[in-house]
């Protein structure tokens, strides 16, 4: 799966995630699935991590509901979520995998471990034979 995000939307995620340190930041992504099998992010939602810690995140369900309604009214499809790892690499942790329950979603993880070199990756997570399997998706920022 190829996932495309604009430099502008990437910039919004990065700026928000930096502003929320030391806490993890989070949000949703929306857009459309293309006929060629790729998906294009057309809007990013910067939402509240109600855990307010640097160790985990939970998206505020009220804000999540508002975002879903906004997507619907703008003809956008929910494509997944994003969150930051302020102090760890851009890869799903065990807890990320355990709580990733939508096999159709793309999970974007922004590492701020090296502040001067933030890393954003996209992942697909699904359960196969009772085990969570992770596949890295190709992320294009353009």
């Amino acid at each position: 799966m190829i996932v495309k995000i604009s430099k502008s939307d990437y910039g919004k995620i990065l700026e928000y995630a930096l502003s929320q340190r030391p806490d993890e930041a989070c949000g949703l992504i929306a857009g459309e699935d293309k006929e060629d099998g790729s998906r294009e992010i057309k809007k990013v939602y910067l939402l509240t991590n109600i855990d307010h810690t640097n160790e985990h995140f939970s998206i505020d369900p009220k804000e999540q509901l508002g975002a879903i309604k906004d997507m619907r009214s703008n003809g956008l499809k929910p494509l997944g979520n994003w969150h930051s790892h302020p102090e760890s690499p851009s890869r799903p942790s065990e807890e990320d995998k355990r709580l990733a329950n939508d096999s159709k979603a793309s999970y974007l993880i922004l590492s701020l471990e090296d502040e001067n070199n933030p890393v954003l990756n996209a992942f697909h997570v699904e359960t196969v034979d009772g085990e969570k399997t992770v596949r890295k998706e190709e992320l294009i920022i353009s």
Partner: protein
Amino acid sequence: MKITVAGERKEYDEGLTVSKLIEIENVETPEYVTVSVNEEFIGSDTFESHVLKEGDEVEFLYFMGGGR
């Protein structure tokens, strides 16, 4: 009666509970689902007893979280 589920207006039988709606709609991993009715979140302990009524607007939200 007509209920709007995830933005789509549909016809259901009277007396429909949230639990039954989750079953009818084949909601995946229902243990991770949060339900709102008319923008009010309802507790999972009331899914069995909460009877929906004409015109209700229901949304299923998946808990989204993780950790480092």
